[in-house]
C-alpha cells in the first residue's frame, strides 16, 4: 500500500486572552491510498482541529506549533497559502458537520459544484456542467439536471449532505475528510450516506478520514481507528483491535457507554463520569487519569507513551507496561 498522508507529532494551539489552548498536543498517524480510517473521541478531544490543521483552515488565533503533515511527501504545514489553495477542494475534499454552514445560500447548487471544476480543473463551462450533473447523479439526487439551478434551502437535510459530498468529490480528491457527516441526519439517511461513501471508495479509490463519536458508524466503514482523548491519541489499531481487544480504559469506557440493541435484558448503561481535561492547563501525566478507575501513581506525573500491543496496535496507557498490574478489560462484548 502506498502512503498518502503522514502526520508526525502535530501540535496545534489557539492563543486566547486567557492563554494557550493546546487543542492538539503531539498527534501522529498515517493513511494509505484507498484506505478509510476513523477518528473517534468525545467533544473537544481535538478531532476536528487535527483535520483543520491538515486543511490549514484554523481560526486566526490558531497555529500549528510543531510537526509535519506529509501529503504525498509534501509538508502541508509549511506550504504557502497560495499553494494550499490548490490542495484544498482539489486534492483534499472536506465534508463538514453542518452542510448549511458550508454551502453558500445565495448561489445555486450548480454554480457551487461547477466553480472548483472551472478553477482547479480548467474545465469549460459546458464540461463543468456535465461533470456536476454526473456528480449529483452519483450521490443519488433524483433529476439532477433540474436540481442544478436550485438553491441549498430547497434541498432537504439529507440531500444537502449529498450535495456537500458531491462538491467534495467533484475534483476527484485523493483524500476525503468527513467531519461527523451523518451526526445531524436520521438513521435511514445516515445509512444511505454511508453506503454512498463505501461505494465511492471502491469506484474512485478515494481515501477517507471519518471523524465521529458514533462507534457504529466507524465499525461500518473504517479499517483502522484512532481514539483521541485530551488532544492526544489514546489508542490506535485496526477496527477489530479497537472493538475486540481494546487496551485503553478510555476506549473501554467509550465501548461500554452505548447500549447494545441486541440485548433483550435491560442493563444499566456505564457512562464515563467526570469532565475532559482543560486544555489551557493540560495535565502533566495521563490526561484520562482524573476519570480513570485504574489510575496509578505514575499516571499523575508522567504521560504514558504509546505502548506497542501488536502490529499497528498501540495504546497510551501505563497498564500496558510490562511491570504494571494485570487488568481484565471490562468489556461486555463477548455475550453478543
Amino acid at each position, binding site marked *: 500500500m502506498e502512503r498518502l498522508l503522514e502526520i508526525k507529532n502535530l501540535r496545534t494551539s489557539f492563543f486566547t486572552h486567557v492563554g494557550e489552548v493546546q487543542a492538539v498536543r503531539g498527534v501522529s498517524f498515517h493513511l494509505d491510498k484507498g484506505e478509510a480510517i476513523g477518528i473517534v473521541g468525545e467533544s473537544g478531544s481535538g478531532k476536528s482541529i487535527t483535520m483543520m490543521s491538515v486543511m490549514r483552515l484554523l481560526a486566526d488565533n490558531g497555529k500549528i506549533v510543531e510537526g509535519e503533515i506529509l501529503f504525498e511527501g509534501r509538508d502541508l504545514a509549511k506550504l504557502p497559502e497560495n499553494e494550499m489553495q490548490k490542495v484544498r477542494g482539489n486534492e483534499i475534499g472536506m465534508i463538514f458537520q453542518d452542510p448549511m454552514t458550508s454551502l453558500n445560500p445565495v448561489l445555486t447548487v450548480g454554480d457551487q459544484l461547477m466553480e472548483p471544476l472551472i478553477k482547479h480543473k480548467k474545465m469549460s463551462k459546458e464540461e463543468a456542467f456535465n461533470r456536476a450533473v454526473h456528480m449529483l447523479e452519483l450521490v443519488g439526487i433524483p433529476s439532477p439536471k433540474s436540481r442544478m439551478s436550485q438553491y441549498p434551502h430547497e434541498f432537504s437535510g439529507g440531500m444537502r449532505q449529498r450535495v456537500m459530498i458531491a462538491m467534495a468529490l467533484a475534483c476527484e480528491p485523493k483524500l476525503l475528510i468527513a467531519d461527523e457527516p451523518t451526526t445531524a441526519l436520521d438513521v435511514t439517511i445516515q445509512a444511505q450516506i454511508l453506503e454512498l461513501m463505501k461505494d465511492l471508495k471502491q469506484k474512485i479509490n478515494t481515501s477517507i478520514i471519518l471523524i465521529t463519536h458514533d462507534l457504529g458508524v466507524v*465499525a461500518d466503514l473504517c479499517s483502522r481507528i484512532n481514539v483521541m482523548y485530551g488532544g492526544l491519541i489514546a489508542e490506535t489499531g485496526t477496527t477489530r483491535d479497537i472493538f475486540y481487544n481494546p487496551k485503553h480504559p478510555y476506549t473501554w469506557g467509550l465501548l461500554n457507554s452505548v447500549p447494545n440493541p441486541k440485548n433483550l435484558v435491560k442493563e444499566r448503561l456505564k457512562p464515563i463520569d467526570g469532565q475532559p481535561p482543560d486544555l489551557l492547563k493540560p495535565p502533566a501525566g495521563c490526561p484520562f487519569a482524573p476519570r480513570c478507575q485504574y489510575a496509578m501513581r505514575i499516571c499523575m506525573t508522567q504521560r504514558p507513551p504509546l505502548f506497542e500491543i501488536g502490529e499497528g496496535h498501540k495504546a497510551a496507557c501505563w497498564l500496558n507496561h510490562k511491570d504494571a498490574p494485570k487488568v481484565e478489560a471490562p468489556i461486555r462484548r463477548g455475550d453478543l
Partner: protein
Amino acid sequence: MNKPLLEIKNLKKYFPIKKGLFNKTAHYLKAVDNVSFTINKGETLGLVGESGCGKTTCGRTIIKLYEPTDGQIIYDGVDIAKFSDKQMLEYRKKMQMIFQDPYASLDPRMTVGDIIGEAIDVHKLMGPKEREERIQYLLNRVGLNSEHASRYPHEFSGGQRQRIGIARALAVQPEFIICDEPISALDVSIQAQVVNMLEDLQSDLGLTYLFIAHDLSMVKHISNRVGVMYLGKLVELADSNELYTKPLHPYTQALLSAIPIPDPDESAKKKRIVLEGEIPSPIDPPPGCRFKNRCRYAKPICSEQEPVFKDMGGGHFVACHLY
C-alpha cells in the same frame, strides 16, 4: 403499571398553509393525523421516526402547547383536549416537557436558579425560602452543584444544560414528562449519563415518560414500548423487545436495519434495507398508505385504501395491508 395515565384517541394537528392575496387557507400540513395510543402509569413509551414526521408536534399537542385540531387527550380519566387555558393550569403542573435543543431552550439572560424556579413562581407554589431549598435540591438531584444556581446557561456544556432542562421540568413535581430528543445533541458518553439519570428519577419519583428520539438503540434501551411514526401517522406500536425482534411494518424493518451496530463483525453480517427516495411532503399527503412510494411490498390496494391501525395480538399494533 398497567393502568393508563394517558389515552390519546384519534389525535390530529393540522397546520394551515396560507396562500394567495387574501391569505386563504388553501392547504393543510397534516403534522399529526389520527394518532391513537395509551401510556401507562410509570411506563416509558418511546416515539421514533424520521425528522419531520410529527414526533415533536405530537408531544406538544398532548400537553396543549398546540391546540389539537381534533381527537381526545384523556389524562387520568379526564379529556383535556378542549380545555381552556384556565382549566389547563392544574394540568400544566402535572405534565412537563424537556426540549430537543439544550442550547436554544434555556433563556440566556436568566440565571439557572431562576430558570428552574420560573414554574414554581408561575404556579405560586412556595415562599422564597422554600423555593430556594427546592432549587438547591433539584440542582443536586440532577448532578449539578448548589452554586450553579447563580450562573448563566452559556457557562455550561451541552450535557449540563440538558440537566438544567430536566431540573426545570421537575420543579413543579410533575407526573408525566415528555422528553423530546433529550440526548440527540450530546456526545455518547454524556448520553449515557443523562439516560441513567432519567431512569433513576423515574423509579424514585414514579414518573411516566414519553421519550422522543431518532436513535433507536437508545429508545429501545429506555422504553417499555415503542411507537413508530411516519409522515404524521403511527404505523407500528409494540413492546420494545418485540418491536426489535419482530418488526412488522416495512418502514420499521428499514429503520431497524439502518441502525449502525458498534461491532465490526456483526455490522459486516448485517443485511441493510436502504430506503430509496425521500419522505413525501406532509402537505396534502397522498391517499392510501403514506409509505407506498418507498415500500418494496406495495400493492395496488396500498394506493387506494389507508391501512387500519390494528392489534395483531399482545398489544402489537400495525397499520399495513400486508397484515
